[in-house]
């Protein structure tokens, strides 16, 4: 299969997936209740009021037309006006995006470097005391509920040690028309705890994967061959082992990055980090439906796109990779 048809196929799959998701979303919204009652007062509305509202919302149109309107709104990012902030929902999401993005990027950089390093250390010497300790620690790290981890980080880092602030973004600096915390010292201090909270489970996950990959690859003949022909362990690690385990690692990093956008919900809420996760939870609690829809749609689309990119990256990285047959 050529790279071109791989790209084409994978993109097609992503588009189909998004289409199905939009259908489910459309049905879901209609199942929840008549949206007319969002704009008219149920107690005082007359039949004419409801009639007018129905026409205004386009609910008198046939169902496929309604879906087209819905899809068009999705595509143009038109989710309506926030009931609470009285701003277009989508631009509200975009405004909160940089905060989430910088948090996730910093956390993922941390997780990827530490995770790969720890995984390599363990995988080079399977069965040793160090390896067993790392493995055990990783199970613990994966077992900590993220909200409790966040709170314990606040307890340890902010309340007991008093070194880091317990919430908020701190000072920000403007770049490319957005505010970024990474650019200021105060912002960085605010970033440490939430980034750790997001990174710790991912360090464990990446370390386990790296360890397993290393053990598998190092057992293969060509690595034994490299040893037999006298290559330095350093060179074997960098030129042979690492490239061969990179495919699953890149995959998990991509997937987890998408997952972080979703899981940031918890961490952002606890650390009062004004990103899209906090926006989502606040909006759910305030019943701000347009913002909820806009946020969920955005995260889903981002995740699906990221997934597709990871698959394509695999195809580039490893010429043998055929895209896995789905179904």
């Amino acid at each position: 299969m050529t790279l071109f048809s791989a790209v084409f196929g994978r993109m097609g799959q992503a588009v189909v997936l998004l289409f199905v998701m939009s259908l489910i979303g459309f049905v879901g919204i209609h199942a929840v209740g008549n949206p007319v009652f969002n704009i008219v007062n149920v107690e005082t509305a007359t039949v004419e009021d409801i009639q007018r509202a129905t026409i205004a919302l386009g609910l008198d149109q046939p169902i496929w037309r309604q879906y087209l309107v819905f899809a068009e709104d999705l595509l143009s990012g038109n989710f309506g006006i926030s009931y609470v902030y009285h701003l277009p929902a989508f631009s509200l999401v975009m405004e909160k995006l940089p905060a989430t993005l910088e948090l996730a990027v910093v956390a993922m950089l941390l997780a990827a470097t530490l995770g790969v390093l720890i995984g390599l250390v363990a995988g080079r010497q399977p069965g040793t005391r160090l390896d067993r300790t790392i493995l055990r620690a990783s199970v613990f790290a994966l077992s900590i509920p993220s909200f409790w981890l966040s709170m314990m980080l606040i307890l340890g880092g902010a309340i007991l040690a008093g070194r880091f602030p317990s919430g908020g973004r701190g000072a920000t600096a403007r770049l490319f028309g957005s505010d970024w915390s990474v650019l200021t010292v105060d912002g960085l201090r605010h970033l440490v705890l939430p980034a750790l909270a997001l990174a710790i489970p991912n360090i464990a996950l990446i370390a386990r994967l790296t360890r397993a990959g290393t053990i598998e690859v190092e057992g293969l003949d060509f690595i034994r061959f490299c040893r037999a022909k006298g290559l330095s362990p350093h060179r074997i690690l960098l030129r042979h082992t690492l490239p061969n385990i990179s495919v699953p690692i890149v995959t998990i990093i991509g997937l987890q990055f998408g997952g972080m956008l979703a899981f940031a919900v918890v961490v952002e809420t606890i650390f009062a980090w004004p990103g899209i996760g906090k926006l989502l939870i606040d909006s759910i609690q305030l019943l701000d439906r347009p913002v909820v829809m806009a946020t969920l749609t955005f995260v889903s689309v981002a995740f699906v796109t990221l997934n597709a990119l990871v698959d394509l990256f695999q195809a580039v990285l490893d010429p043998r990779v055929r895209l896995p047959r789905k179904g």
Partner: protein
Amino acid sequence: MIAQTLRTWWKWWKWWPFRHNELPKLFLCAYVLLALAAPLLAPQNPYDPTQIFAWEASSAPGTPSGGGYVYWLGTDGLGRDIASTILYGLRISLMVSVISSAIAAAIGLAAGVSAAFFGRWVDIVIMRLVDLQLSLPTMLVALIAIVTLGPSIDRIILALVIVQWAAYARMVRGVALGERGKPYVDAARLLRLPTHRILFRHVLPNSVPPVVTLIPIEIGHAIALEATLSFLGLGVPVDKPSLGSAVANGFQYLLTGQYWISLFPGLALFGLIASINFVGEDLRRRLDPRREPQ
């Protein structure tokens, strides 16, 4: 035939517990016993307002109670005994996760085996659904489900089932397809065995062990997810706290130094998930195909 199948399964069930790596298993057993015996052990019923003394709210651990017992782990902002809250919360957390995992495993098993065995459009439809679900983070799916369904215990279980079934279905299908391609199934087909016999006597007994390893992992996920949702206020109702909502209750008190309200329920939750994960890890290592029993 069902008795036969059960006996085959019993054969490998009987050798799993209590060999090495005892500690997590002991912990897990203790957790289950504590949860079952909560009403007997807990000095206070945290769901019963008449047993709660509001003036003893936020007592530090070790404070004697007006009810004649000691708040070994302190009380929360409403005056509920933390130790009792943990015991009762454990019940809800375990119940919700075990029930949802059982339903999800049953649905997943049925869907996966059907997909593998009937193939064609059945396979396509089921696997597209699985893809759809697995291509989104669990947290997102749970949030979407809760937002559309609304929070309550049965809705939470439903959301957890929606989140989990696909993982089972995909694994069962993969394993069953792999087994179906093996020569021993070919040999069975050559004997013209009835399809159900091939399925229940040959494919299923060999597909179940790998799937079993998924159960503890998924239960662990379910507990964590339920706790997270409850923490966010989207889970079980506040008057019947699970471990997650118990931790959430303490959040606002954390900054004023009343650490115990969040610390102890969280610790209990952490210990529960960790012991399940360790047992799961052990189970998976034991059933690793690379160490077939000799």
